[in-house]
């Protein structure tokens, strides 16, 4: 349904060119949940904002790549064409429900806005649809809630409003950017449950961005791991957790406190992610890589190769064949 090829987004700042997304490719099928994980600054949000051309420009600029959705290249189509898709066929849930709703508009006006723009509904029809949408996400007393302002709602409720808003036009693709990061675990569980249920019911494709590996394990069909603006590994969820093949994925998985006994020393990734304003030569993870093998790390740019079926990993020759978990290589 969505096919992204070699997407590059750079930010041109006073301090140099910041290569936030450095040539990533991926695809999403109808009804599939693609999870994107990575640390802050790994380019996971920027890559998705680029798809809908929501990057502030200047300083940001999409320097290259294509993103084909339903036969339209999102990155190069006209604004008018994009308007028809954005908010209608592709919609987005943003990270922070506290800041992403307009405090001057009632919940109802905000939810109904896309209906007036895209579907040209009458006020009456729109209210009916908005009420249903709120009920669907589990907000009680929906008709009265439409008249509330965002500050009258709790964080969990606001996030539900964001979801209702994103789903009201029945999009084919939903991009959820850390939709539960700002929420408590119990509310997070509610929201994840809700997204899963709605996704199944409407067979929506979902791109789910998070830094929480636990959340990914629960919701995604396929996972893409990003590091320093690049994809280092992508695989079906179960496969990724069973056979993490890139040293970064392995390190990320094994640093989770949940997998350690009390008092046992946590595995860490030493150092910091690389400075993206400098061109990265060779493997971006080389400096922090615990399995570093000096052969080619510093010079050759690793390419994604298919290690197992549907399991792609950045081909850092030296490292991926190292781990005992890879002995059963197909």
């Amino acid at each position, binding site marked *: 349904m969505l096919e992204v090829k070699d997407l590059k987004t750079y930010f041109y700042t006073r301090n140099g060119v910041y290569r936030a997304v450095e040539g990533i490719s991926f695809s999403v099928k109808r009804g599939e949940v693609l999870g994107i994980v990575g640390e802050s600054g790994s380019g996971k949000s920027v890559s998705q904002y680029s798809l809908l051309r929501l990057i502030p420009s200047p300083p940001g600029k999409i320097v290259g790549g294509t993103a084909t959705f339903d036969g339209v290249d999102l990155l190069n189509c006209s604004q008018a064409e994009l308007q028809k898709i954005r908010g209608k066929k592709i919609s987005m849930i943003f990270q922070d429900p506290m800041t992403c709703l307009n405090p001057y508009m009632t919940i109802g006006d905000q939810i109904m806005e896309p209906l007036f723009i895209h579907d040209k509904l009458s006020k009456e029809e729109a209210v009916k649809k908005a009420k249903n949408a709120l009920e669907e996400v589990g907000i009680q007393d929906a008709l009265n809630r439409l008249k509330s302002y965002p500050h009258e709602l709790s964080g969990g409720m606001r996030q539900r409003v964001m979801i209702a808003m994103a789903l009201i036009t029945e999009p084919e693709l939903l991009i959820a950017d850390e939709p539960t990061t700002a929420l408590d675990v*119990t509310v997070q569980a509610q929201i994840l449950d809700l997204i899963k249920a709605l996704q199944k019911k409407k067979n929506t494709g979902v791109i789910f961005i998070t830094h929480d590996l636990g959340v990914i394990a629960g919701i995604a069909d396929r996972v893409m791991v990003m590091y320093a603006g690049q994809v280092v590994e992508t695989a079906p969820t179960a496969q990724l957790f069973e056979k993490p093949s890139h040293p970064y994925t392995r390190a990320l998985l094994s640093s989770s*406190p*949940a997998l350690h006994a*009390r008092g046992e*020393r946590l595995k*860490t990734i030493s150092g910091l992610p690389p400075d993206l304003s400098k061109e990265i030569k060779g493997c971006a993870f080389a400096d922090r890589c615990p399995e570093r093998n000096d052969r080619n790390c510093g010079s050759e740019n690793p390419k994604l190769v298919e290690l197992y079926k549907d399991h792609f990993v950045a081909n850092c020759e030296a490292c991926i064949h190292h781990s005992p978990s890879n002995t059963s290589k197909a």
Partner: protein
Amino acid sequence: MSMSFLEVKNIKTHFPIQKGSFFSKTVATVKAVDGVSLTLEQGEVLGLVGESGCGKSTLGRSILRLIEPTSGEIFFDGKEISSMDPKALRKERPQFQMIFQDPYASLDPRMTVFDTLSEPLIFHKIVGKDEVENEVQRLMKMVGLAPRFIHKYPHEFSGGQRQRIAIARALALRPKLIIADEPVSALDVSIQSQILNLLMDLRNELNLTMIFISHDLGVVKYLCDRVAVMYLGKIIELASSDELYANPLHPYTKALLSAIPLPDPQAEKKRERIILQGDPPSPINPPPGCSFAPRCPKKSSALCETKMPQLIEIKKDHWVTDCPCNVPA
């Protein structure tokens, strides 16, 4: 009865809500912390968990009297600090320190690492004037910062490094008790594990007693000896970590544990989630009975809504509120 290292008895912190600007009057009270008792032995790490707004941070700050508690008693190392006058309290402060959540907000942007770390040393006369620089360097090494960064400003550091500075500042006065308020929540996973390791090392080296406030139950399980679960200003369950995670009794604790996402797709598929409905009630007008009753999946009788449950020791060292929902199976 011998006294524990830290004893908190029935502490309450209420915030008045006032209306009117000049002839203001109190129209309501937010009961942020409403009758909490705790004891801690030396060298112990107690986890304090709960959702946002449950009063865990307020409790932490009230214990250190960074927020004045409304009532209740706090004994620290045999001395009552709840009724101490400010002057006497200041003398005691070096013994209990705090690490804050957000290292971007808790460090003064106009003070270098040296300024930040030397200020408490000089104020409390921990070391002689000519030894200050050495001591600052020793602190930096202790938390894993290279001493060559001594004259840098906070903005030159990453989040993890800043949190190391904040930890060094808390340790500068050689405290016996540290209250850490979500010290790793603002950090990325890979950095989070570095800081957790550091806290563990320091705890072992310095025999620190610690209250670790967090909403991340995975981190708490890993780090803490005992865990207290808070809901709407009250502790509803308290037990050793092993016991609490293996054998939770309160329906809220159960729901909380079942909501932790596990980094394991197999386990995620199999397990049963308890999805709570609704949000916690407002602490302004808490329900008269069990504060969890409106969301409780096991609510059994009308009694839940009228009778205020009390914390009882149901098994040795396992405390839980005495509501009928909490009977061990």
